[in-house]
């Protein structure tokens, strides 16, 4: 059971950090308040 949780945590961290890097590349900061391009 712990092995599956570990594998899932590794996959989740990889995808999550890729998202973080993408946000930094696009908005040049990791402030979530800067991500307000959608209107409304």
């Amino acid at each position, binding site marked *: 059971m712990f092995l*599956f949780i570990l*594998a*899932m945590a590794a996959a*989740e*961290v990889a*995808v999550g*950090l890729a998202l973080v890097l*993408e946000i930094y590349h696009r908005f040049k900061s*990791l402030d979530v308040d800067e991500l307000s391009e959608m209107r409304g």
Partner: protein
Amino acid sequence: MQLAFYIASAVAVVSTALMLTRLHIVHALLYLIVSLLGVAVVFYLLGASFVAALEVIVYAGAIMVLFVFVVMMLNLGARGVEMEERWLTPGIWVGPVVLAGILIVEILYMVRGSTAGLGAGGVEPKQVGITLFGPYLIGVELASVLLLAGLVGAYHLSYRKVEKREIQHDADTHEGRAAAGGDLVLAGTDRPARTP
């Protein structure tokens, strides 16, 4: 044996509390690594030596290293300190502490009186391997598919199309070498030669 458990769990709890209150993100990550090592010691004392080794190697050694890589690549530490000073006021701890305290009281009430033997029923790595090849085979295959999906997703999210002009030289290395300033090592690349 009980003393070893109390020491290891105290280290894990204290380093987690320190991790939550640090202003510099690299300090927080290092305290989280210490906390995971403490949890690995607790796993070992419970008899799960294979799980303890995996916790150190995979969780503290791969996942946290990924975090440290990203934080150090984006250079988040120094800029974040003043932001955290503004946001991490003492007053914001009331809500999470109260809710987590309710959970702790509930868990302590449920496990009162039952003494789980430390080190009772140690699981050998050979046993873990046999169960992974036997009853839990589907779980292993699903975990590998999940890791493949995570790998492809992370690669696709960070794919950048790089426009790079290539300098074409003839197959004769003398021209390429002269263009690179007499350097045989740089002759095949488009990097400018170093001026001595």
